[in-house]
């Protein structure tokens, strides 16, 4: 622990401590050896001194010894009193007995009783003792004993020690002063470096630099530190500028987001307002059409009646005038109908009634109905139905209306010219399309006018409306009808040379994606056209559970289901709804299933509707002989029934002429799509 504390001392203190410890150790060692040497040599000189003294005393007292003059010997010995360090002296006779002696007053040690046989000097119990043989003229006369205490030596030692301590203190202080002065050489740069580092780390100030003092290792350390600091400062500056940019970008983004949110809200608001306005417009148009139709009803009705009456009475000259009233009334009616159509399209209420029809036959009928209009402006109509057009599945009324519009326009704007209609089946993007081209040699349309041709009320020219009449809505409606069926109308025209309108429609029009179908079961009342895009299936069965069940799963399969509880109601609904397929129970109260089937097949209008007999009585042969298309035995397998209906659905149109019974086992035929 103590060592640890030392280790953790500041570098300044450590340096001083090291210096002090080193110098003190050197001083102590030096002083101790010096003191030891001095004391030893002093001791030698002391004993030599004492030996010399003993020789002198021995010489002086030899005579007294020889003559046994005790007093003289004692006087000689007592002279030693002057010598402070002599504590005792004695003269022994040759017999070894004490002849004379001197003992200092405060001496406590006793004289040795017998002298040793030989001379010598030795230290004994803090005293220096000398035995010296006394002789006279070569004749031994006795032995001298001199004892000296070490007071001289010890006082010298004390003096020396004191001097040494003082010397050590002085040199220690000097070393301290020097060390404290010189440690700065090392500690100051380090301490300054440390200060700088603290400043950098605490204040994050990367601009300061550590001060370099000398070009030693610490100097190099400081250089390295400063270089590191410069690098950090550079990175910090870069980081800060990046941060500033990031913050400003973030702010920009935030403001942009809030702007967008606001814009979105405004858009939503605008959309809501627009939708409200659109609804209001539709309602207004519906009301207006009602208000306009009522007086129009009277105008047309009366003029027709007057025409009949005039013809009855033979006043033929007025017939033309009445016909003009009628035609004006009909024109007004066409306008109202067009406006209503357009408002229905815009309100999204225009549904599609999809059915399969013979395209060539429809075109032929249309062309023959158009013959008087063609002839009016002395035009000719040429039909080009290339190849086998086959069946088309679309809303036939709308297709007819589009073609009617295109042909009407061609007739209206062409005089003494040729109008041709070309219809062909093509394939594009893996889909079958029908292309209708209506070409005329009339006045043509300028490029500028072509651009707005399909907008509402945008007849190519205001003057045209005056000269040729028309609502200006025909092309707009046609265009939207085409879009509704997934097709398009385009125009290509040269001013003065004529125009070509091209209508492109899918050969199999898909109904718009319908919302999830809810089962709609009606016990006694049928609902018409609530789901015009779905095929209507009429379920005739007296068991409400069966009606409910069949309605549910057929609705789920995408059909519009109408249910009848007995044969009478079933026949009525069949007549009114012209369903795509009828499922018919056999055992029913009132007219049974066989009776219903017979009456359905007897009615020329209903005979074409495929009938699937669904019953517990297994009599397939009778059913098929009576004209049923298929026969199923209860309990009905849902998938089999759906499959069967899917297959019969497509046969509706041609069913009139060839009602081919389809047995349940046939399953590999391609199914027409019903989405």
């Amino acid at each position, binding site marked *: 622990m103590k060592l640890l504390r030392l280790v953790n001392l500041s570098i300044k203190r450590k340096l001083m401590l090291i210096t002090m410890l080193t110098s003190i150790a050197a001083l102590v060692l030096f002083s101790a050896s010096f003191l030891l040497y001095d004391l030893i040599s002093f001791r030698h000189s002391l004993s030599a001194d004492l030996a010399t003294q003993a020789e002198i005393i021995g010489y002086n007292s030899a005579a007294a010894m020889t003559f046994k003059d005790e007093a003289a010997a004692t006087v000689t010995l007592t002279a030693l009193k002057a010598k402070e360090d002599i504590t005792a002296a004695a003269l022994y006779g040759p017999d070894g007995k004490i002849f004379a002696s001197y003992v200092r007053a405060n001496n406590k040690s006793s004289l040795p009783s017998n002298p040793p046989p030989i001379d010598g000097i030795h230290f004994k119990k803090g005293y220096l003792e000398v035995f010296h043989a006394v002789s006279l003229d070569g004749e031994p006369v006795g032995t001298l004993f001199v004892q000296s205490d070490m007071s001289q030596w010890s006082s010298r030692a004390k003096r020396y020690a004191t001097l040494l301590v003082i010397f050590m203190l002085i040199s220690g202080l000097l070393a301290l002063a020097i060390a404290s002065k010189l440690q700065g050489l090392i500690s100051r740069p380090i301490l300054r470096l440390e200060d700088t580092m603290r400043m950098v780390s605490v204040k994050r100030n990367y601009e300061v630099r550590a001060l370099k003092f000398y070009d030693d290792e610490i100097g190099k350390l400081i250089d390295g530190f400063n270089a590191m600091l410069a690098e950090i400062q550079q990175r910090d500056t870069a980081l800060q500028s990046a941060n500033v940019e990031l913050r400003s970008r973030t702010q920009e983004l935030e403001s942009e987001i809030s702007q967008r949110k606001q814009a979105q809200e405004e858009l939503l608001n605008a959309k809501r307002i627009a939708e409200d306005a659109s609804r209001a417009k539709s309602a207004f148009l519906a009301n207006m059409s*009602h208000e306009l139709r*009522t007086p129009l*009803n009277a105008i047309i*009705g*009366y003029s027709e009646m007057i025409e009949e009456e005039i013809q009855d009475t033979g006043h033929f000259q007025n017939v033309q005038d009445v016909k003009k009233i009628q035609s004006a009334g009909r024109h007004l*009616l066409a306008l109202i109908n067009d406006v209503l159509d357009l408002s229905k399209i815009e309100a999204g209420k225009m549904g599609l009634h999809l059915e399969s029809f013979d395209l060539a036959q429809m075109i032929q009928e249309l062309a023959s109905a158009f013959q008087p209009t063609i002839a009016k402006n002395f035009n000719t109509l040429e039909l080009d139905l290339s190849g086998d057009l086959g069946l088309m599945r679309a809303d036939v009324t709308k297709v007819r209306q589009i073609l009617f519009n295109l042909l009407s326009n061609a007739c209206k704007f062409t005089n003494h010219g040729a109008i041709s209609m070309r219809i062909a089946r093509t394939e594009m993007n893996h889909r079958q399309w029908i292309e209708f081209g209506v070409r005329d040699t009339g006045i043509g349309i300028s490029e500028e006018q072509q651009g707005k041709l399909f907008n509402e009320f945008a007849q190519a020219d205001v003057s045209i409306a005056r000269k040729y009449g028309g609502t200006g809505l025909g092309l707009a409606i046609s265009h939207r009808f085409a879009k509704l069926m997934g097709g398009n109308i385009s125009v290509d025209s040269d001013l003065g040379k004529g125009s070509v309108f091209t209508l492109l429609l899918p050969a199999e029009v898909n109904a718009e994606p319908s919302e999830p179908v809810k089962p709609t079961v009606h016990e006694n*009342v*049928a609902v*018409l056209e609530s789901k*015009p895009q779905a095929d209507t299936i009429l379920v005739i069965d007296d068991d409400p559970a069966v009606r409910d069940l069949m309605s549910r799963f057929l609705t789920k399969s995408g059909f519009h289901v109408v249910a009848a509880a007995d044969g009478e109601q079933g026949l009525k609904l069949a007549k009114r709804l012209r369903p795509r397929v009828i499922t018919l129970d056999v055992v029913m109260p009132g007219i049974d299933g066989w009776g219903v089937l017979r009456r359905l097949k007897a009615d020329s209008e209903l005979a074409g509707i495929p009938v699937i007999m669904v019953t517990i009585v297994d009599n397939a042969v009778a059913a098929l002989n009576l004209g049923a298309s298929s026969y199923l035995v209860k309990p009905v397998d849902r998938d089999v029934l759906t499959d069967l209906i899917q297959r019969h659905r497509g046969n509706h149109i041609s069913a009139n002429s060839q009602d081919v019974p389809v047995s349940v086992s046939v399953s590999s035929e391609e199914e027409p799509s019903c989405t």
Partner: protein
Amino acid sequence: VPTILLVEDNEMNRDMLTRRLERKGYQVIAAHDGGQGHELAHAQSPDLILMDISLPVMNGWELTRRLKSDEATKHIPIIALTAHALATDRARAFEIGCDEYDTKPVDFARLQGKIESLLAEKKTS
């Protein structure tokens, strides 16, 4: 001679339709509002009813519903005549119990066809 009850509030249309129907040989009785239509349907028991929809007192929907839920009158075929040419009106007409539906202004030949077929249907059943 088949009797036709015409329920129509517009005077001109009532007059015009009455005269045209009479010219075609029908006997026509006319009512100018829903209440009178209801009375005449019960009192005269006509063979067919031509029903305008927007009528005072009781509108055509309501009158049709009443006549079709009444044992005495439910057998009389009703043709709804409406100026609302929206598909929803057509659906509603059948939903409420009308046997046929046509829009105004009337295409007289088409209307006569519908009258004839309903009268024929009634005769057979």
